[in-house]
């Protein structure tokens, strides 16, 4: 606990409460206060703090960290507390009957031979060995689970392979790719996370890849930072596809067809605030002729969170956060809300199915990689 306090720099907290002021969970749940939790962690009894329900409510969106002038690493604290709580047998409330958590643990167990490449479009070029690997993410499973609410995360994956091939990259794709482990890490289940990471790195090495490209912000952040942190230097260069595409766009290597639409772009927490990739998606969208990009009131580092994390503690508070985001999106007058994260897409589309709010919140949501891939000129 002491180690966690010092690594999270909790002792620097000035008790100013600005974290609580910007926290989306706190906005809708008065019982949750980042400031109070930091206080409890520093001053309270360790076993008592680990029993608290509130440690599972944090979305790890980073809004507090961006605001904190003292440099407190709040998300780090949450991770530490959840790890400790997990050892005591505590967990958040899993959504969807624990389906996602079961799936992740199944993936960590070994003995799995998935059949997950069916989404690849005809004509997609991939190779068994390559210096670049495209790490897809859990999109095939998402689309199977959430097809009934209009989720199409695989259209992003298809856009990605189209873009990669257009950039002259013929990537390897793991036929038995495991979940990156982000949610296990954020559920305090470090052991399962480690297993997933080790399995993935082992499989990636077999392809000879030195560079891994991802579209999922959580996967990207996890492979880039957390894998090295927990497994040591993997020797892999991890990039987000939008970084490659933006570079090519700036160099004039990509041409797009006209797509005359007013759009707004949502910065996912793990891509925006946490990885500071704000400019690349905008560079790309502005390069598409006819696209009118309008920003939401809260964007870039102040972007709103999509309201749910790690498939747990999803409830009324999540819904209100999603409603806030969707209202801001609609207020821009945009016809399409462009997201860069498959989970944001799922959570926002789910919110739109609310019986009472649905009509007010309905807006077309599309994945950026799907839009950009589609817009490519011949």
């Amino acid at each position: 606990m002491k180690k966690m306090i010092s690594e999270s720099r909790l002792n620097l907290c000035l008790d100013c409460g600005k974290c609580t002021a910007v926290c989306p969970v706190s906005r809708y749940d008065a019982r949750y206060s980042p400031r109070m939790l930091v206080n409890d962690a520093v001053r309270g009894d360790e076993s008592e703090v680990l029993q608290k329900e509130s440690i599972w409510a944090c979305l790890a969106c980073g809004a507090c960290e961006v605001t904190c002038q003292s440099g407190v690493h709040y998300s780090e604290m949450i991770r530490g507390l959840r790890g400790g709580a997990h050892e005591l047998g505590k967990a958040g409330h899993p959504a969807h009957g624990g389906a996602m958590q079961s799936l992740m643990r199944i993936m960590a167990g070994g003995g799995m031979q998935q059949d997950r490449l069916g989404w690849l479009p005809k004509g997609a070029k991939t190779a068994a060995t390559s210096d670049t690997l495209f790490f897809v993410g859990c999109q095939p499973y998402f689309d199977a689970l959430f097809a009934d609410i209009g989720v199409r995360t695989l259209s992003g994956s298809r856009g990605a392979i189209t873009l990669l091939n257009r950039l002259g990259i013929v990537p390897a794709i793991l036929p038995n790719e495991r979940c990156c482990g982000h949610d296990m890490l954020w559920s305090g289940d470090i052991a399962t996370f480690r297993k997933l990471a080790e399995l993935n790195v082992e499989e990636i090495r077999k392809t000879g890849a030195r560079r891994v490209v991802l579209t999922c912000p959580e996967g990207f952040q996890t492979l880039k930072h957390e894998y090295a942190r927990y497994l040591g230097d993997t020797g892999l260069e991890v990039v987000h596809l939008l970084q490659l595409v933006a570079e090519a766009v700036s160099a004039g290597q990509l041409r797009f067809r006209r797509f005359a639409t007013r759009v707004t772009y949502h910065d996912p927490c793990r891509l925006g605030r946490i990885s500071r990739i704000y400019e690349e998606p905008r560079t790309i969208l502005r390069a598409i002729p006819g696209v009118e990009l309008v920003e939401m009131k809260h964007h870039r580092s102040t972007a709103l969170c999509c309201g749910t994390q790690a498939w747990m503690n999803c409830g009324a508070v999540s819904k209100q956060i999603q409603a806030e985001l969707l209202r801001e999106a609609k207020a821009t007058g945009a016809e399409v809300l462009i997201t860069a994260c498959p989970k944001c897409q799922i959570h926002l589309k789910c919110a739109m199915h609310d019986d009472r709010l649905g009509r007010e919140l309905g807006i077309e949501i599309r994945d950026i990689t799907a839009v950009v891939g589609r817009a490519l000129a011949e």
Partner: protein
Amino acid sequence: MSEATNTQFEPRVVGFICNWGAYSGLEMAGVMRKPYGATVRFVRVRCLGRVSTGLVLRAFELGADGVLLLGCRSEECHYGFGIGRAKQSSTQMAALLNLAGIGALRLSLVESPAGDGMLFASQVKAFAARIKKLGPSPLGSGSPVEVSWGGELLPGGDQRV
């Protein structure tokens, strides 16, 4: 958990059975003394519609080789819409099981007419035979969770409650 000591593979099958029509089939099979084997361990639920994808995945995570869903026919569904919900879910479950390499064949949704002990017994035996033929779940040896499946199989395979 130890298939290694026994050359005969004894499948571990979880059978979610709805309290109403399907369960009356089980009871009738007992009354008629129609054996249906001890392979399927039944979990009685109020309605098959409440058996979520998560529950089925959890069964496989814990080492099930097969999952059988026994419900009523739509015209006999106690809650009206329950079996319809279960059918929708089972399509989703099948897609996931195929992706995961477990295979949709290890899952079956069966409509069991109320009170038909004979049909019930044959449905259960048929699924158990299918799983036996398919062999252990590909996840079997890898499951990190140690679960005691409990109970002893009586000689002759008849389930005695």
